[in-house]
């Protein structure tokens, strides 16, 4: 008798998390209607579960039509083996086993659905109202839930059954339902709590809705899949517990059910007396019906938690495209990173999505390079591709191109070789230190991990070095012994930067390290990063959505739009004289606190869907300078005075320049 609920692994949410690193696909659609059914139909476990369930439903509705004989008539020879007349033989009382099985279906199905329904209803009432009411009511209700959850229910039911022997179906359903709701209630409460923080509930309250409306019409519809899961779990538990109770003789011994069959089989020692099928087949039925619920339950978990699904990337559909005219200047020792034709694709339900499309750039020793773009433009993916942090379990694969870091092509390096150069030669700083630091280890332990992986430093030396780097970012070394959650947001971010500097690498890749901070803290951290960079001489790739943030810090700027490089050039030059219409429009979208107040326009429309990129220029749909040509043909990158621009407006000036110079020149 087992039912192990699958605990919610993550805080259940109804939308996809921040799209910073995820594939640029529309958010998961769940909780309602057709999408749910489509997802069920796609899931093999769900399909098997549904079919099994349908099979038993049919048996339970038409036992009289399907069963060959009466289940109770003791008219045959007892203890017959399997034959064409009696597929599963006969009982010690001369009844047909198959007919008993078919008639027994009804009770199990009724119990499953009745208990499932009752328990789910209770779970919804208790769980949702606990979370929604909060305060003392919540404390009280969740305490009751927890107590009922941990009291061993089955022994308790046995105790009750011991006083109320031969309980009828009705009593059984009531008792099982009354004791089986707690797990679902717990789950629903957690989900409601996470919903409570969501603004649409507050919006409903502000609108003036009554509490009952908010619960019934705003909360419940968003929790469909969890309610279904709760029902399935309770149904499974009911089938197994009821069979167990009947098996030990605490049910009505005259009822038609699988558990009762097992009880009589056991009492007649059917196993030893060669009536094996009598003792085994009812169990098979219980297991199959249980499996139907368990499979559906598991499938629902997969559907509602997209992380559990594994998508395979199939890049055969992505089009081959000619390479952009790349910078062909010879590799100098000054250049520590060259990215050539780098492409990254994600697998999505709608086929491969190319999130980084044929990107080229290079980076000099000690240079500060800003990569800017809007959400979903592929900037973070590019960063992770360079750091070779894509691939399972993270979606996204490098499909083409090279990343030459200090002479080695990182794309071709194996895990072991990569591990060797990681952190010593290049390190990574992530957007949110809260998520990027291991919550169960102290700062010191996490620093020690990195040191041990790459050096033979003694514990003493490691501690000394850790203190040094913490001081670099002005954190009191006392925090070496702190856990991440004990630090403030700004400190965590600094601690992560300190960690990245343990080996003073040549390159530090930063993914929006300041975007979670307030303006003042952000400015202060930027100043510190710049100062450290100048002092220690490492190169920085700084990924951000906020162009103005890097304006005073970066040497060069790479503007990405819809997976491609839109413009790449000197930062000052790019701000003073933006060439690409997108860059220009983006700069015009920042209101300023200086100068006269002018009306700004922003950029109408939204970026293209990368699963179906447009044929021509990707910005054409939003561009005031779009021409029939740019709508039909994708522009390459043009070299305009050392600045690379993906726009036909610069075709001529670039050509002229090429004639003048006679050769393609390198950037910067």
């Amino acid at each position, binding site marked *: 008798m087992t039912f192990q609920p*699958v605990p919610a692994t993550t805080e259940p949410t109804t939308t996809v998390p921040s799209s910073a690193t995820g594939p640029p696909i529309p958010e998961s659609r769940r909780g309602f209607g057709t999408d749910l059914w489509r997802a069920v139909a796609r899931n093999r476990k769900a399909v098997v579960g549904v079919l099994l369930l349908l099979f038993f439903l049919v048996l339970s509705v038409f036992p009289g039509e399907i069963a060959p004989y009466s289940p109770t008539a003791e008219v045959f020879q007892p203890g017959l083996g399997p034959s064409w007349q009696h597929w599963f033989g006969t009982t010690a009382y001369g009844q047909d086993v198959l007919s008993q099985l078919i008639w027994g279906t009804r009770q199990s199905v009724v119990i499953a659905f009745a208990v499932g329904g009752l328990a789910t209803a209770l779970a919804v009432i208790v769980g949702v109202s606990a979370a929604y009411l909060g305060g003392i009511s919540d404390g009280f209700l969740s305490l009751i839930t927890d107590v009922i959850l941990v*009291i061993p229910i089955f022994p308790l039911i046995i105790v009750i059954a011991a006083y109320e022997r031969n309980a009828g179906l009705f009593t059984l359903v009531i008792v099982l339902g009354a004791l089986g709701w707690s797990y679902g209630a717990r789950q629903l409460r957690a989900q409601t709590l996470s919903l409570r923080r969501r603004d649409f509930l507050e919006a409903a309250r502000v609108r003036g809705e009554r509490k009952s409306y908010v619960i019934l019409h705003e909360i419940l519809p968003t929790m469909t899949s969890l309610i279904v899961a709760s029902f399935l779990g309770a149904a499974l538990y009911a089938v197994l517990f009821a069979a167990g109770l009947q098996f030990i003789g605490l049910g009505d011994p005259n009822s038609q059910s699988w558990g009762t069959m097992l009880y009589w089989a*056991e009492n007649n020692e059917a196993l030893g007396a060669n009536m094996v099928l009598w003792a085994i087949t009812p169990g098979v039925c219980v297991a199959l019906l249980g499996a139907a619920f368990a499979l559906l339950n598991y499938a629902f978990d997969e559907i509602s938690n997209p992380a559990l699904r594994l998508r395979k990337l199939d890049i055969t559909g992505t089009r081959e495209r000619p390479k952009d005219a790349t910078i062909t200047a010879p590799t100098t020792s000054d250049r520590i990173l060259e990215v050539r034709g780098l492409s990254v694709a994600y697998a999505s339900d709608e086929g491969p999505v190319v999130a980084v499309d044929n990107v080229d750039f290079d980076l000099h020793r000690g240079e500060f390079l800003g990569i800017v773009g809007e959400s979903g433009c592929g900037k973070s993916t590019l960063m992770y591709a360079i750091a070779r942090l894509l691939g399972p379990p993270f979606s996204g694969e490098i499909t083409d191109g090279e990343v030459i870091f200090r002479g080695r092509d990182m794309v071709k390096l194996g895990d072991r070789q990569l591990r060797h150069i990681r952190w010593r030669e290049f390190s990574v700083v992530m957007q949110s230190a809260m*998520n990027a630091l291991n919550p169960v280890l102290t700062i010191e332990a996490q620093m020690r991990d990195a040191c041990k992986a790459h050096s033979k430093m003694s514990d003493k030396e490691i501690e000394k070095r850790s203190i040094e780097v913490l001081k670099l970012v002005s954190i009191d070394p006392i925090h070496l012994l702190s856990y991440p959650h004990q630090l403030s947001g700004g400190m965590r971010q600094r601690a992560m930067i300190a960690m990245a500097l343990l080996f003073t690498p040549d390159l530090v890749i930063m993914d929006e390290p300041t975007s979670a901070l307030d303006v003042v803290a952000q400015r202060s951290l930027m100043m510190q990063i710049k100062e450290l960079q100048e002092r220690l001489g490492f190169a920085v790739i700084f990924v951000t959505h906020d162009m103005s943030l890097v304006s005073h810090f970066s040497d060069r700027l790479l503007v990405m739009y819809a997976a491609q490089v839109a413009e790449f050039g000197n930062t000052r030059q790019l701000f003073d004289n933006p060439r690409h219409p997108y860059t220009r429009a983006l700069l015009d979208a920042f209101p300023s606190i200086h100068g006269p107040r002018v009306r700004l326009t922003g950029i109408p429309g939204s970026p293209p869907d990368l699963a179906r990129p447009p044929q021509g220029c990707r910005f054409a749909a939003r561009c005031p300078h779009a021409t029939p040509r740019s709508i039909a043909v994708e522009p390459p990158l043009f070299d305009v005075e050392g600045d690379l621009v993906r726009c036909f407006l610069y075709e001529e000036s670039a050509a002229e320049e090429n004639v003048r110079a006679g050769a393609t020149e390198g950037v910067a």
Partner: protein
Amino acid sequence: MRFVARRLGFFLLTLWAAVTLNFLIPRLMPGNAALAMMSRYKGRVNPQAIHALEIAFGIHTHQSLVGAYFTYLGDIARGHFGISLTFFPDAVSHQVLQALPWTLALVGTTTILAFVLGTFIGLISAWRRGGMLDGALPPIFVITSAFPYFWLALLAIWLFAIKLGWFPESGGYDVTTTVGWSWAFVEDAIRHSILPAATILITSIGGWILTMRNNAISVLAEDYVRMARAKGLKPWRIMWTYAGRNAILPNLTGFAMSLGFVVSGAILVEFVFNYPGVGWMFLQSVENQDYALMQALFLMITVAVLLAILAADGATAVLDPRTRDGA
């Protein structure tokens, strides 16, 4: 420390709830089962047995319900559970203590083993995402987790004891062996425990594997795992201290919550195998209408589950600094 104190408080509260249920259930039953039972036995058994029933039900003829309740609580607190009717005139507590070691050895060991093994396999399967292990395990264990324990036990007896004769059919030891700390006895006891242990292990391990696998998959997608990769840590280090340690935390909560279900299964397995543990004795007491024994065993099982939950809470507090800070 607030966390530990809170969990201890919860422990006591649940215990109290179980005791109170024990007191109330016979009274809430239609026709007041307790009184009915008393009148049925009056004159048929000796006064000592009647007294035992009085203690079991907390019936003291001249006391109010509230007074009876407090006397009952006092008796329980002092370990007075009355006298067993089945093993008359043995004290219930003595009987319980005789059965306890068997269950601890069988159910305790297999449950811990199943949890540890299942957690381990689940982690590996998530780590090698899309591999053979990962492809085969979930569907198999989703289905085994729907198997009724007792049915699997029947199947095991039929196949391995009756058909193949590899293991004894039932019981905790051979009647011919003398009970004691001799090698022969221990060997015999182990031989008898293999089938029931395997049954419990097979049916319960699936749950742990699946939950751990799902937890680990979520954790593996966390930034700190990516960060650990960026730091160039060795794979096993990432798997254990970064993925494993974080993924096991929800699994420990799951352990606490599913324990009641595992114990329920174990009771039936003991019953099918006639294994002389708490579960078997519990069902015997139900069969024999030995209510004093039955109630004591129910409390016993509850306490055992609660202690295991407390242990899981302790492990959580050790592994997760956030719970220690009460954050």
